[in-house]
């Protein structure tokens, strides 16, 4: 595939191209041995140089850089992870009510010796596929399909993995007509009642209602360069400053990076990405995600269905920051009032 670079990666674009050129030479059969040695040396040098640059760039990424990385056209998508992590997988289709939404995928598979149900939004890789998948903006049928599969998991006591990667929920006339808000609301409510482990990984864009409609989990991981936001930064900028080109400033203000999410309690753990981002070493990224998922399931499977429901409830119950004046406590207590402890 043709290499694509987001702004932060531009400085290494040229090096990457040279390295690829050399790789082509090294792969070719007809090159004499001494030329090969030269090429190999040169390549190793360039790789070292590139990796140094990458390290430099990636230690000082701005929130906006992260937004662009989360949306990177070469970033691995849900089905890429499923294919890489699962020993087997069958995609299942349809919401049994109206249709099948290609922006949401789901199915049953084997992961690390377990039967699991996996659901997640799916973006497209080329123009045709992107349109087919509505750029990962899932509609009511998508959320209802996901819920159907999660209920199937609940019924047969299988754990659920949710891979979140969406700019937001579908912005379509048809989505409104068929109740996109109801579908997202219902998913959150029903997910709160699942008696099986639900593990969420935000692999790219955690975009507003579209993300939370699939993210009420016992444990929420975020990839290092993923984002989680209440609104797209461009839309936010156009609301505050009436200027959608100021997305970078809005990205800063919205505190949407994985570190921010961890600090706010929105994410439980950050999964580090390989140098240069998940798309530069996808096999390694998938291994890390799989390890995290298996570890989380090992832990969560010790809980009873009732405990899982309670743990999930409490996980979300404590989110939010506000001020509540201390009440006249009936007894001496060191605990601050519920929820206000964050303040």
């Amino acid at each position, binding site marked *: 595939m043709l290499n694509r670079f987001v702004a932060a990666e531009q400085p290494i674009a040229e090096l990457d191209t040279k390295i690829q050129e050399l790789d082509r030479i090294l792969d070719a059969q007809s090159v004499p041995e001494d030329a090969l040695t030269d090429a190999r040396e040169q390549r190793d040098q360039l790789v070292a140089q590139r990796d140094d640059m990458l390290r430099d760039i990636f230690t000082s990424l701005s929130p906006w850089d992260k937004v662009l990385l989360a949306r990177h056209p070469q970033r691995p998508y849900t089905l890429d992870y499923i294919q890489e992590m699962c020993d087997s997988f069958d995609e299942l289709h349809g919401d049994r009510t109206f249709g099948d939404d290609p922006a949401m995928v789901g199915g049953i598979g084997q992961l690390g010796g377990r039967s699991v149900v996996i659901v997640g939004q799916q973006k497209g890789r080329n123009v045709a596929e992107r349109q087919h998948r509505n750029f990962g903006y899932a509609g009511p049928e998508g959320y209802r399909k996901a819920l159907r599969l999660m209920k199937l998991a609940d019924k047969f006591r299988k754990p659920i993995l949710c891979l979140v990667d969406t700019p937001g929920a579908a912005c379509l006339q048809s989505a409104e007509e068929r109740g996109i808000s109801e579908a997202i609301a219902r998913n959150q409510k029903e997910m709160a009642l699942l008696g099986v482990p639900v593990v969420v990984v935000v692999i790219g864009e955690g975009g507003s209602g579209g993300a939370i409609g699939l993210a009420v989990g016992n444990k929420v991981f975020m990839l290092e360069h993923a984002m989680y936001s*209440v609104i797209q930064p461009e839309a936010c900028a156009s609301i505050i400053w009436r200027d959608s080109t100021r997305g970078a400033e809005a990205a800063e203000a919205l505190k949407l990076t994985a570190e921010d999410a961890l600090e706010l309690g929105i994410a439980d753990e950050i999964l580090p990405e390989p140098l240069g981002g998940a798309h530069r070493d996808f096999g390694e990224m998938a291994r890390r995600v799989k390890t995290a998922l298996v570890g989380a399931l090992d832990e969560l499977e010790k809980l009873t269905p009732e405990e899982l429901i309670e743990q999930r409830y409490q996980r979300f119950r404590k989110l939010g920051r506000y001020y509540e004046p201390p009440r006249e406590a009936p007894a001496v207590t060191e605990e601050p009032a519920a929820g206000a402890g964050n303040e």
Partner: protein
Amino acid sequence: MAITPNGHEPRKFDQFEIEAAREKRKSIPGDLWTKCNECGFMLYTKEFENDLRVCRKCGAHANLNWRERVAITLDEGTFVEHDADLEPVDPLGFPGYAKSVAKYQQRCGIKEAAVCGEGRLLGHPVQFGLTDFNFLAGSMGSVVGEKVTRVLERAAETGMPALIVSGSGGGARMHEGALSLMQMAKASAAAAKLERARVPYLTVLTHPSMAGVQASYASLGDVILAEPGALIGFTGPRVIEQSLRIKLPDGFQSAEFQLEHGMVDLVVPRAELKATLGRLLEFFAN
């Protein structure tokens, strides 16, 4: 800014235009007359208030502030407010947020967009919550999410039915970032708790009920009522029109549209709202 030349507020707008339009709402000096936002008709204010701020000419339901909403919903003198001292903080240091919170606190006389408590409705005890559209468009940040959650939790604990009147154009409040988004899940999970406890949950959707709020607790009532003409949906109509370059049909996302599409149980004129809620509570109580 889509304000038509004759000063009417068109039916399709986004949260911020609504706010701007409200600022422009013209009251004749002395407040003797009030102009209907919808049709521009001049209404004798006393009569307009008696009509629960519904236009005599076109039937448009003007927004009620929290005091008015409590007054027309609960039996006189029965409302006991809870959690009135919960205040928003500025968790992200978001540009302009602290200032605008202070402004709305002063203007509305409440610390946040949500007001909650308990009272009686035609004699039936209820856990009651509302969002006041006048306060930052009734959007949901940490405090609104917390208050709604507490209403639902108290209902689950006490067995008193929960009633929430939602009026929110903003959905999840962007000034609190993803924390606002998390309130959607928190409140929805509380609705799940209520369901497990088999306690009735009624929601009333008022103009406008959009986005993150509509995609959360507002959509989860056992029975969902809507006021006539209320805009109800997820993505605002202008955003859809602009991004898809289409013209949406008249009445798109109106309460009547949602009734037709199976998303609300009943569209109830404001004057009949209390009696209708009373019958519903009667059903659950008997």
